[in-house]
């Protein structure tokens, strides 16, 4: 399948949605040519609102639009949406459960040579702690397309992590996206990976190379981190001797945290969290970043292989 960039999918899908639904609008924090919401600016200028380099106001404007019956998609970088305007997200979006959709572009650490100020590898932890907030991290372009459509129809606030660069497609075209549902992407008996976002693509690659080494690893993709598909995670945990969580995020409070919290209460299991270990990111080429921070398919492969060998 073709490698698509989720930001391109975002721009194209929002143009379609503006054409299909009179309530859809896109709000930009002066990053339209990075987030590709400039496609909306060109195709539907009547639905595109540049709000300025002012994220607190950006969120409030979206809340007002939602309160007046529109479906605003706020488009900015994850680093700003998850932190710069957090009080606004908390008070006028999450608490009143308004129908605001947050398109958190450049999520994770693959942000195109920006360094740590533009990386927020703890946004899942922040957003999933807000009551009423739905948190989604699609794995590839096609899943992003369907998730953006599902989020638009969904009643209530959504925080959607999107990534910058093209990523190998693993989702078949037109596969329905159901908020709160996990997908079993690969079966295996020796260990299980629970993953989210683009890291699922790397997890599948790791599982493939492990199978060539005779290690049989299952992969459960959890694109909705909140509400998480608890039944699927618990059932998955019952089928494998140990679990690795895999995300382009801190090991604190993200998917790994959510899975560990759930299993500790319902079905205690050994959970090894693969992600950033209480560190900030930095500038660098994607491949180098993934290697340094232990997120590449090769790193995931080696961590699993070493852990199984020492078990």
């Amino acid at each position: 399948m073709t490698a698509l960039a989720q930001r391109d999918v975002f721009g194209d899908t929002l143009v379609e949605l503006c054409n299909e639904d009179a309530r859809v609008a896109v709000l930009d924090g002066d990053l339209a040519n990075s987030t590709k919401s400039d496609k909306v600016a060109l195709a539907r200028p009547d639905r595109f609102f540049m709000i300025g380099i002012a994220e607190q106001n950006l969120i409030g404007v979206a809340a007002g639009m939602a309160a007046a019956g529109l479906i605003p998609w706020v488009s900015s970088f994850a680093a700003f949406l998850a932190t710069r305007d957090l009080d606004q997200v908390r008070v006028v979006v999450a608490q009143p459960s308004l129908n605001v959709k947050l398109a958190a572009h450049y999520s994770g650490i693959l942000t195109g040579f920006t360094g740590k100020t533009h990386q927020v590898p703890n946004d899942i932890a922040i957003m999933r702690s807000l009551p009423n907030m739905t948190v989604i991290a699609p794995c590839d372009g096609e899943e992003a397309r369907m998730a953006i459509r599902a989020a638009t129809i969904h009643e209530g606030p959504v925080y959607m992590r999107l990534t910058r660069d093209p990523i190998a497609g693993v989702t078949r075209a037109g596969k329905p996206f159901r908020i709160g549902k996990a997908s079993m992407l690969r079966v295996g008996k020796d260990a299980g990976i629970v993953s989210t976002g683009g890291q699922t693509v790397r997890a599948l690659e790791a599982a493939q190379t492990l199978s060539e080494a005779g290690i049989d690893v299952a992969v459960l993709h959890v694109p909705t981190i909140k509400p998480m598909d608890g039944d699927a995670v618990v059932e998955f945990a019952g089928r494998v001797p140990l679990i690795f969580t895999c995300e382009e995020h801190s090991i604190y409070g993200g998917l790994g945290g959510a899975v560990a919290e759930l299993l500790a209460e319902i079905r205690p299991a050994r959970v090894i969290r693969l992600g950033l270990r209480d560190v900030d990111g930095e500038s660098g080429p994607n491949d180098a970043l993934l290697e340094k921070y232990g997120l590449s398919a090769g790193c995931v492969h080696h961590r699993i292989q070493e852990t199984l060998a020492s078990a």
Partner: protein
Amino acid sequence: MTAQLLKGVAREIRRHTLRAVHHAGAGHIGGVFSAAEMLATLYFHVLRIDPQNPAWPDRDRFILSKGHCAIGLYAVLALRGYFPIEELETFDAIDSRLQGHPDMTKLPGLDMSTGSLGQGLSPGIGMALAARMTGRGFHTWVMIGDGETQEGQIWEAAFCAARYSLDNLTVILDWNGLQQYGWATPAGYESNARRNPADGVQAKWSAFGWNVLECDGHDPAAFVDACTRARDASDKPAIIIAHTTKGKGVSFMEGDYTWHSRPLSDEVVAQAISELAQ
């Protein structure tokens, strides 16, 4: 409604506020009293609303950005028929629809949840843009306090509203000059009358591209006139700078920052209500 009747409504807002705050044990008073005539005039004269149909899509929108003055808003909503007056006694009680700060998920008639200061103007911009995008003719009104203009978001919003020439948006600045603790006067922090001096507020909003109007916020006729001019103006968003007195209506509360929020004794309530009745 005549100015005399609107003043009567304002008196009722103050009286219900004193009773509700007394009943709840504590609450905000001073900033409600500075806004009482304006709240009365908005809900009984200016706003195009239907209390029987609070979700009417074409209604004017009102956002109380200074959300700590919620009890004043609840009082005028009850007086206008949005809910029974008796419900004001539930203010701040567990399970009440009348939360300490306005919660739009609980009480019909609230157009936005507020409380974290400096945030109310931005949703007003969203509503004004939505009105324009959907071709609806409603006007959006946002009441802010002067204290919360210390928040940067107010100025982000001031810039943005002017950039979009939102002539269907009006800010009402309840300029009472006092806040919870306040700034030192030349005498330091000894005085309770520590009103922030005039600081070029008109010039600031004008420089941001707003149509600046001024009036006495305790004079309903003058406020109606300012609201009419604000609604009718074109090309720019309007701000009505309303000169007000914090704690207005009760002699010992006027201009004293300590009445921003505090518990009320039986004696204080009795004395205050007797002053209001005069």
